[in-house]
């Protein structure tokens, strides 16, 4: 452990320090505002530390963690996502629950887990990060402790996350049995041995669960529905983004795509996720469940970047994930801002005529939905375009046709919600009178909308950054 190691680990250290600082501060004096702002400031400092450390070369911390520009890019994305979630949570929690302080300890700890996943160069570090993330999420999902839905969601997540972790650990054990090391191995080694291949299949269960890919997606709608809206956003973005970054690194470090069977398996999973996610979303009247199913489809799209050639696939994944982060966090942020103290605004009826009652929220949600649908002028369009380019360059025709089909289907249900937003308001009193939006929530939503449109209109700076950071070889 040298000073340089510590410097490379600074984002991780600062995020940990955030959790500890919040804990000490609220032990001394209990204030919701103090906890929230300390948490936000700590996460912002961690983001700043990434920006300042951009010149560092890839750095290995023993054989467990590697801090390279790829890890730094995704760490930044994760920390920014967590920061937005923390800010959105302030307004959300203020109206709900009697204790807020634990939330701001668990949230940075979940971010630490995600950072460990992103930086891991070893299955041991991956599993450790996965556990930390999962454990924090169990408590965060059930944080309101009011309705049956929350507890049901948390128990479902607990049991299924436990089972999928068991598979992942068993997979790691098989890989260890094969080669005597848990480090991400030299390319091609895994494919020669059936034991390692079985291990990778078991690992896929753990990864597929966290990404909510199709055979492992059953928890998604219930958990999104039961979880507090900002936490649903966190699960959709930070948790998935971290595991996806790890999958990207693992697949290319081990060069698993040299094997036709793995390509076929991933292709089938991706196509099934795109189609099943979009088709199931069509039938939903519950907005949170609809966003849950659409998130399944979005990760399916992302797998195209995983299967495409590295030179185009990696930047495409980074662009698409950035756009997806912005749009999902924004959508869940609006859901949270509209929510009653007793229940989240998840019924389609809650959104009828929103444009006339709450123009700002309606405009924000419109931008987010258009981006999720991948329509021009939004970041989602840039993301989808680069995904298509990467797919075309690697001739993934099956997946591309699934992508096109899925996108067409998705436009139906996004438009359905949009139509509700702009419908004439019912003559009678609106079904719910949503509380005023606190200014931090407004600021966060404004930031997300501006970023979304800025990237959609002028993507060059983001593309430059991604070319510099998310592509570099490791």
């Amino acid at each position: 452990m040298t000073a340089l190691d510590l410097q490379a680990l600074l984002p991780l250290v600062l995020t940990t320090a955030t959790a500890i600082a919040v804990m000490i501060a609220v032990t001394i004096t209990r204030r919701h505002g103090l906890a929230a702002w300390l948490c936000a400031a700590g996460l912002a400092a961690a983001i700043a530390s990434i920006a300042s450390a951009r010149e560092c070369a890839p750095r290995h911390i023993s054989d467990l963690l590697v801090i390279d520009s790829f890890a730094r890019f995704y760490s930044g994305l994760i920390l920014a996502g967590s920061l937005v979630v923390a800010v959105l949570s302030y307004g959300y929690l203020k109206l709900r629950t009697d204790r807020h302080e634990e939330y701001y300890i668990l949230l940075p700890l979940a971010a630490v887990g995600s950072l460990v996943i992103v930086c891991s160069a070893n299955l041991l570090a991956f599993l450790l990060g996965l556990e930390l993330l999962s454990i924090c999420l169990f408590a965060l999902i059930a944080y309101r402790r009011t309705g049956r839905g929350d507890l049901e969601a948390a128990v479902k997540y607990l049991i299924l996350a436990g089972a999928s972790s068991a598979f992942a650990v068993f997979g790691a054990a098989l890989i260890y049995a094969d080669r005597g090391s848990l480090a991400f191995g030299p390319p091609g080694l895994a494919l020669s041995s059936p034991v390692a291949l079985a291990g990778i299949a078991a690992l896929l269960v753990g990864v597929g669960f966290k990404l909510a890919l199709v055979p492992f997606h059953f928890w998604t709608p219930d958990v999104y529905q039961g979880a507090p809206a900002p936490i649903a956003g966190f699960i959709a973005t930070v948790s998935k983004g971290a595991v996806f970054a790890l999958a990207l690194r693992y697949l290319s470090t081990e060069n698993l795509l040299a094997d036709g069977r793995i390509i076929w398996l991933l292709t089938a999973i991706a196509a099934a996720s795109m189609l099943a996610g979009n088709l199931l979303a069509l039938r939903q009247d519950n907005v949170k469940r609809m966003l849950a199913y659409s998130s399944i489809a979005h990760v399916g799209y992302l797998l195209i970047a995983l299967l495409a050639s590295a030179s185009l696939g990696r930047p495409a994944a980074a662009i698409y994930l950035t756009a997806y982060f912005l749009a999902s966090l924004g959508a869940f942020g609006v859901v949270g801002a509209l929510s009653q103290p007793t229940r989240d605004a998840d019924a389609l009826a809650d959104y009828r005529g929103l444009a006339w009652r709450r123009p700002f929220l309606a405009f924000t949600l419109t931008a987010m939905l258009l981006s999720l649908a991948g329509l021009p002028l939004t970041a989602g369009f840039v993301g989808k375009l680069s995904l298509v380019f990467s797919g075309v360059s690697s001739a993934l025709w099956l997946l591309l046709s699934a992508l096109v089909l899925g996108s067409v289907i998705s436009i139906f249900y996004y438009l359905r919600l949009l139509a509700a937003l702009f419908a004439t308001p019912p003559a009678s009193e609106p079904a719910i009178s949503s509380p005023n939006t606190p200014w931090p929530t407004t600021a966060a939503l404004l930031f997300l909308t501006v970023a979304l449109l800025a990237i959609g209109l002028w993507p060059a700076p983001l593309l430059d950054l991604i070319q510099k950071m998310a592509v570099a070889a490791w």
Partner: protein
Amino acid sequence: MDNLDTIVFYFLAALALVGAMGILVSRNIVRTAMWLLATLVAAAGLYFLLGAAFVGAIQLIVYAGGTLVLIIFGVMLTAKNPNVSYTPRTAEIVLGVVLCVLLAGALIFVLHGTAWPNNVKSVEEVKRMSQAQRDLVGPNNPDATESTGRRFLGDYLVPFEVLSLVLLAVLIGAAYLGRPKVPVIGAPRGVNPPPGQEGPRK
């Protein structure tokens, strides 16, 4: 003495399997917990047999001693009737059995078809090795615990500290979720549970 090892191994493996089958078959959750004890202790025995004394001790202390107590505790805390049993539907049983047989078949096929390298070192061989070599040898390493400790302070420092974060997350999450529901003074309507449903009382 190779024979004794083999006998002990098969005994422990049989105990673990019988325990696992018992977990599946018994419908009473307290009995399930007792069968789980058999499996956990057998696993601990297997660790000792492999020379991984530290892992074996952890298995006994944490799993057989802690987790299992927690399961029994959970029964005492939650169910109105601790002998609650549930009956799965036939379709569920069939699906479960089919999946398990497929999984077990695939694993047996893979594990059986692999030529495992025979590089297990005897105790005498390990004793002749240098420290660095010893650290790499898991089984039969007389000071495996010591090399674990050395790694906690060296290469595995970061995971060791992250582990304390995991424990912290468990502490806070469990304490938060486990606290009795209390009425909130001045909270909006609906946050407080309706009267009479605040949670279990003694």
